[in-house]
């Protein structure tokens, strides 16, 4: 295995890892609001969060590319004040990836929250526990499968991300050349052997990680 190949895998893992971490932080509060609170226009809000599910990655990629361009307000702002350009950079791909994976985190978490009987929350409240304590001590431990699903789907979806990256990434080794792009590239160049090597390694790694997750998850039942 050559260095390029390893770098590409590391980069892919880095992108997926960061996206998952950032979405964990965003995802829990948002899912909580959606699951338990009522507010006006909630369905529209929910729909907006789910948009990346339905929108082709190329649409998102296109709009990101336009936004990042120094010719437009946002891109110019970043360029002038932070001297950064997001297009063709890891950060740029990361932002796109966070946006794009949002519903993969939110949906399972929200589902998990709504399927916990209301009386658990009510009991905790009467015991004087704050919403936050209740969330940490009662809700989270009773929705472990949903949390695992959310994390796995998000991480996984990022590893598989292709459309957005090919539009805003520019195929820069070490920055934006993630595994999916690398494989595409090798296939287009008809380097089937290299494509095979990438694919096979990714296949094995994925299979191992997932088997591990499911073995652990299978032992615990939903309600312990």
């Amino acid at each position, binding site marked *: 295995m050559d260095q390029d190949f390893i770098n590409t895998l590391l980069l892919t893992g880095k992108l997926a890892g960061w996206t998952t971490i950032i979405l964990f932080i965003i995802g829990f509060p948002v899912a909580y609001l959606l699951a338990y609170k009522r507010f006006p226009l909630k369905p529209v809000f929910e729909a907006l969060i789910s948009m990346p599910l339905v929108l082709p990655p190329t649409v998102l990629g296109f709009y990101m590319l336009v936004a990042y361009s120094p010719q437009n307000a946002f891109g110019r702002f970043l360029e002038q004040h932070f001297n950064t350009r997001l297009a063709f950079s890891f950060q740029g791909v990361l932002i796109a990836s966070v946006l794009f994976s949002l519903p993969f985190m939110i949906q399972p978490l929200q589902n998990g929250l709504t399927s916990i*009987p209301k*009386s*658990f929350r*009510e*009991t*905790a*409240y*009467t*015991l*004087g*526990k*704050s919403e936050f304590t209740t969330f940490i*001590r*009662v809700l989270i*431990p*009773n929705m472990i499968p949903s949390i695992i699903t959310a994390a796995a789907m998000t991480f996984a979806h990022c590893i598989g991300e292709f459309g957005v990256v090919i539009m805003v990434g520019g195929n820069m080794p070490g920055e934006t050349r993630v595994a999916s792009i690398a494989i595409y590239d090798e296939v287009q160049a008809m380097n089937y052997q290299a494509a095979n090597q990438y694919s096979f390694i990714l296949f094995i790694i994925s299979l191992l990680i997932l088997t591990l997750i499911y073995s652990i998850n299978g032992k615990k039942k939903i*309600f*312990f």
Partner: protein
Amino acid sequence: MLKIDIKRAMLTSEGKTNLEVTAEIQDNELLCLFGHSGAGKTTLLRILAGLTKPDKGRIVFNDTVWFDSEKKINISPQQRNVGYMFQDYALFPNMTVEKNISFAQKEKDKDEVNKLMELFDLDALKNQHPAKLSGGQKQRVALARALASKPNVLLLDEPLSALDFDMRLALQHEIRKAHELLNTVTCLVSHDLQEVFHLASSVILIKNGTVINQGKPADVFSGKQDFYPKQAY
């Protein structure tokens, strides 16, 4: 002292009615709610706990207004410091028996937890999760948990209905002791006359949402043979 004066729409097996309760419960009083299935007993407890909002009225505990529909006051369950035992227990599936009880404590006190588990004959099950408990065992954990929070107001929804007679007697004793020790206002739902007589310092008879009698157990039941029970033990 807990002053209650509330009204709330309710659908019973007799059709739509209002739950209307006016009562004053003195400190240290142990009140029994007594009434037909679906009369509104659980609903009243939920209202006291702050889990269900009355349509109208006032609830005042000592000097604190818990609820006032006119002044739009409705303080949260957390601030009311009640110990509410649900009719269907609502034990936390992720916690062991021991954790369920200690979770309720405001200040952790392991000895207290052990004492409670011993009293309720749960020691051997302390590391079990609720899914592996029998009906009566669940009920005892729920009761122990409600007591563990050392509440100002104790709300118990049929706390002993799934227990055998021995256990029932023993726990009646414990409830009474806890009530005296914590110096709480206690409201208890029961269908068992013996239990009412044994425990209650006063009784509220509810029928179809309306209070039809209240007072000392002996007074309430003496004149009301037509209402309840049709046939004495």
